[in-house]
């Protein structure tokens, strides 16, 4: 143990003495780790938010299709869908976009008469109360809408319909900011208010939400598949399962973070080359030092251990710096530049904080991807360095 501690002391001393190498590696690897951790935290946050938003989502969403494009779905399908095997609840929904000022917001109308769906649980509130069961031109708004318009509980919103007719709605509640991204820009209202706003005929809705029996978790996936197949037989409609929605979200954000991953791999390779070069340069400088250490009784394995400890410490330090920068950049600075790329549609929507999820898994992975490449990049120069002839000490630095 004493020996290990002594070698560690020497490794720390080398990190202090070879300042240029230390600074170059910390800087390059720290930047690389900060980019990786920043994107990973955002990507994790977005996927987590997606999963949160889908927690209360229907098992199946039925949409109308015409010439391959999404259209309204006739309400007459509701009766048929209710008869499908395993289906316990069917609810209608109308949604679209509304303009307030120059900002496009999502307007969703839900059927609050469906007692089986607990909307107030699915959309927790920060203030105010949830919508009443009857249509009365009240709305609950997302946090970003509230911040953007300065609207609070009791405020009245004027929204322009597609025919440029202004309609007013009273704000009765504001959503909790916990799952910010998926309800931040949302205006939730009674389905009849939404029908009136969008001018939909009585026998059409945007989509039909289908819930399948939850009694047995093991058999539920089969039930969902059977119901989806049955409902899919309806003409001019498509059935989207919750799994597909989840996968779509993961793919979207995964692809965006994937783009950065490619950039990051390139940076990491560059950093590994820099680390290799630095270690080779320092290796030349320290070759004579190694000869001396060996003359003083250090073995080749001692020297390799010292060099690997240096890499381990530098890698961990760079990883920690990168993580800290990543957290500050995402959580405190709001991830400027990267945020727009990851969210994609942020230029249309009101600004809201980027969802960030700092997981232990990402922290460990970030540390691993800084330490392991550095260890690999320095292991060969370290070995070459460690095999220096101890006779060099006798011959002097010019030998």
């Amino acid at each position, binding site marked *: *143990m*004493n*020996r290990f*501690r*002594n*070698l560690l*002391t*020497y490794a720390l*001393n080398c990190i*202090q*003495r070879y300042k240029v190498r230390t600074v170059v590696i910390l800087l390059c690897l720290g930047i690389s780790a900060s980019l990786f951790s920043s994107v990973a935290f955002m990507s994790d946050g977005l996927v987590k938010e997606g999963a949160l938003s889908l927690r209360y989502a229907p098992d199946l969403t039925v949409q109308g299709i015409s010439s391959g494009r999404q259209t309204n779905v006739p309400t007459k399908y509701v009766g048929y869908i209710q008869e499908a095997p395993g289906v316990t609840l069917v609810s209608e929904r109308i949604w679209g976009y509304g303009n307030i000022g120059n900002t496009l917001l999502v307007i969703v109308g839900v059927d609050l008469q469906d007692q089986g769906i607990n909307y107030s649980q699915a959309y927790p509130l920060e203030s105010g109360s949830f919508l009443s069961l009857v249509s009365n031109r009240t709305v609950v708004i997302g946090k970003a809408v509230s911040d953007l318009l300065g609207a609070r509980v009791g405020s009245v919103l004027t929204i322009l319909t597609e025919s440029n007719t202004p309609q007013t709605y009273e704000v009765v509640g504001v959503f909790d900011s916990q799952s910010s991204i998926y309800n931040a820009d949302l205006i939730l209202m009674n389905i009849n208010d939404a029908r009136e706003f969008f001018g939909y005929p009585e026998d059409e809705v945007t989509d039909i939400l289908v819930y399948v029996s939850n009694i047995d978790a093991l058999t539920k996936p089969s039930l969902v598949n059977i119901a989806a197949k049955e409902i899919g037989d309806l003409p001019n409609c498509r059935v989207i399962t919750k799994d597909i929605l989840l996968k779509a979200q993961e793919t979207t954000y995964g692809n965006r973070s994937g783009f950065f991953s490619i950039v990051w791999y390139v940076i990491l390779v560059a950093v590994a080359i820099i680390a290799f070069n630095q270690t080779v340069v320092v290796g030349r400088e320290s070759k*004579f*030092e190694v000869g*001396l*250490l*060996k*003359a*003083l*009784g*250090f*073995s*080749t*394995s*001692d020297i390799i251990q010292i060099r690997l400890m240096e890499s381990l410490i530098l890698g961990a330090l760079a990883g920690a710096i990168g993580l800290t920068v990543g957290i500050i950049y995402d959580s405190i600075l709001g991830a400027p530049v990267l945020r727009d790329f990851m969210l994609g549609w942020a230029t249309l929507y009101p600004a809201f904080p980027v969802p960030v999820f700092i997981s232990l898994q990402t922290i460990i992975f970030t540390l691993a991807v800084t330490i392991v490449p550095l260890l690999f990049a320095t292991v060969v120069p370290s070995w070459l360095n460690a095999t220096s*002839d*101890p*006779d060099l*000490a*006798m*011959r*002097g*630095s010019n030998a």
Partner: protein
Amino acid sequence: MIEAVDLAKIYNQGKRNQVEAVTDINIAANSGEITVFVGPSGCGKTTLMSMIGQLLTPTQGKVIVDKENITAYSDGWKAIFRRKNVGFVFQHINLLSNLTALENVMIPLLCHDVNPSPFRASALVLLKKLGLEERAFFSVEQLSGGQQQRVAIARALITEPKIIIADEPLTFVDEASARTITDFFEDLKKEGKTILISTHVSNLAKLADRTYTMKDGRIAQS
């Protein structure tokens, strides 16, 4: 006791630039004695010292320490042998920059399975004996050549080795430091250490209990 039997070293053997640095060396060095190797530059003194100290593997022959052939050891065992038994003093001094004199003295302890802290007092005592008590916490760059060589001698002795190998220890040393060092070698001899010194300086040669004169890689006179 150290014996070298038929020791030879050929650099770049079989190549066009082959050099026979040392040939047919047979010497002996006893405990409690100072054995001195004298001879002109390039006569093979440093190569011989390196082979005796197991820094260099001979092309031929063997080194026997206390009746054991240490030339047959693996590199790992040679490192352990050096760690436990040999203290080196180099012609080029070889201190680590950016460290204090005291830190340099304590470096050899780092490859031992010991806590170096209790040895701090011993290191300070050694530096005091060598007249450097007030320079112990100075960075080695702030010391003169003579002071640096005295730090190197303290470093060679911190692990209390039984063999001291000093290669031209007075080359870059002023007269006052040279006197301190020669006196110190005499004290070490009294402690029973086996001391081997290569030199071309007459005042060190005067200390010798046994002198080998080298020429062209061979012992010309003993």
